[in-house]
């Protein structure tokens, strides 16, 4: 499974990849359910509609502008330094021009990236639940879809990171078939930037005492969403292995098994950790652990043996609930969906683990370079862009709107109009 090796792409692989990519949106649907369930009931409709809005904005921005940067080809923008060619951006055509006549594999890559940008945009939306305004969510999605994700995707899948193998003899270069880096780690970092800029929900961190618990309003959504996400993740990882790792179709069963192993091991670990920590297992943290396992599989499923995938998921499942808790209690990070831990940290761990457990020598160094690029460059860039965007479109809803709830304030109605509304006990 050497990335970017010039292998032919037979029609059977094309058909298989297309079918898998048609199933991949199940991951997005599952994540949307998780985000809605982890938010409050008075913001549920805004969260669900917002998911559609941010997906639409991100996809349109990507196809109109981002694809030109993300696409890889002979005419990419290359910087020559230290005797090497650094392919730092694509030089495709704007507004999706030439798509119909592009080679079949390029079209599949575009479809993969379109789904990826939808996922990236959803991650910070979930973290801004209960206070992030819809126009701000759309603005964030546009920035991610038009500029940030395309650059990360180009580097990871066809640019200088992917070419670390040919240019610097670092195994097959940065390997990330399912997009743990440009999708999940980037999404997690964007979520952190949104949380920092928008601030915590009102009443979350009172003047005295510990932070206020604000549990999700529907854990059944969260758990069912986690199951739905598994279907999409299986398809996503298999399609990614075919497209970016040049895996043979006969290797896909291992990819699928690795995906399931990582998720299940993570769930067992989180179940046990929360059982020991709180006396009873915590359902929403278990969902977070399951998703963290899936996120690690995005990096690992195509390159590591099954036992390693199980171990990687196990570690993610142990660390994720502790991280979610400490981010809130120690670091004052109000992240309703746990995206910084589930996507950011688990994505980072998955990428490093893929390097450690992959059989190719030099893979670990290539993975570390990729992680360093995403963390060191993308977080400051994303924070800077969002900080500027916040001046144009205020991220945070006003105090009155937050008190009313995002549904009533932004949409004029409630997701559950027959609910009896209780006094909010979290304001103290």
């Amino acid at each position, binding site marked *: 499974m050497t990335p970017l090796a010039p292998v032919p792409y037979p029609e059977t692989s094309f058909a298989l990849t297309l079918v898998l990519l048609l199933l991949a949106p199940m991951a997005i649907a599952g994540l949307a359910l998780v985000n809605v369930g982890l938010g409050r009931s008075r913001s549920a409709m805004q969260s669900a509609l917002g998911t559609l809005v941010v997906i639409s904005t991100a996809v349109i921005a990507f196809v109109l502008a981002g694809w030109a940067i993300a696409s890889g080809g002979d005419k990419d923008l290359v910087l020559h330094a230290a005797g090497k060619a650094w392919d730092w951006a694509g030089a495709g055509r704007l507004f999706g021009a030439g798509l119909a006549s592009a080679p079949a594999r390029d079209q599949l890559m575009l479809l993969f990236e379109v789904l990826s940008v939808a996922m990236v945009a959803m991650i910070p939306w979930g973290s801004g639940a209960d206070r992030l305004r819809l126009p701000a969510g759309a603005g964030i999605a546009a920035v991610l879809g038009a500029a940030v994700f395309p650059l990360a995707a180009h580097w990871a899948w066809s640019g200088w990171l992917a070419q670390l193998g040919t240019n610097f003899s670092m195994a097959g270069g940065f390997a990330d078939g399912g997009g743990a880096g440009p999708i999940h780690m980037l999404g997690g970092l964007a979520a952190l930037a949104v949380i920092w800029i928008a601030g915590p929900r009102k009443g979350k961190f009172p003047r005295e005492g510990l932070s206020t618990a604000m549990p999700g309003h529907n854990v059944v959504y969260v758990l069912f969403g986690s199951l739905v996400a598994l279907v999409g993740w299986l398809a996503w990882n298999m399609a990614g292995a075919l497209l970016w790792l040049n895996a043979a179709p006969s290797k896909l069963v291992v990819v699928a098994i690795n995906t399931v192993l990582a998720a299940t091991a993570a769930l067992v670990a989180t179940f046990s950790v929360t059982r020991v920590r709180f006396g009873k297992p915590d359902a929403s943290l278990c969902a977070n652990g399951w998703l963290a396992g899936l996120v690690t599989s995005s990096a690992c499923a195509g390159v590591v043996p099954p036992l390693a995938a199980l171990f990687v998921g196990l570690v993610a499942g142990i660390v994720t609930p502790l991280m979610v808790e400490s981010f809130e209690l120690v670091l*004052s990070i109000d992240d309703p969906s746990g995206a910084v831990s589930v996507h950011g940290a688990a994505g980072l761990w998955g990428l490093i683990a893929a390097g450690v457990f992959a059989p190719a020598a030099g893979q670990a160094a290539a993975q570390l370079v990729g992680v360093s690029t995403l*963390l060191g460059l993308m977080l*400051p860039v994303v924070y800077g862009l969002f900080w500027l965007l916040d001046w144009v479109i205020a991220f945070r809803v006003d105090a009155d709107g937050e008190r009313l709830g995002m549904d009533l304030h932004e949409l004029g109605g409630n997701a559950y109009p027959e609910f009896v509304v209780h006094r909010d006990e979290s304001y103290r």
Partner: protein
Amino acid sequence: MKYAGLLVMPAGFFLTVAAIVLFPGAAQRTAFVLCGLAVEAMGLGVAVRGHMQLRSENR
């Protein structure tokens, strides 16, 4: 303080890029890439610390 931390982070990235250019040996290269990551981690730590200070002041 938060901005100072965020400004330090790209320095770690450039250290990583310098490592892959300057060191052909795998061990040295990996060590310097890890140093780059450590610089990024320090920058992130400072940024998080800055965020916590701001939060405690705003309470």
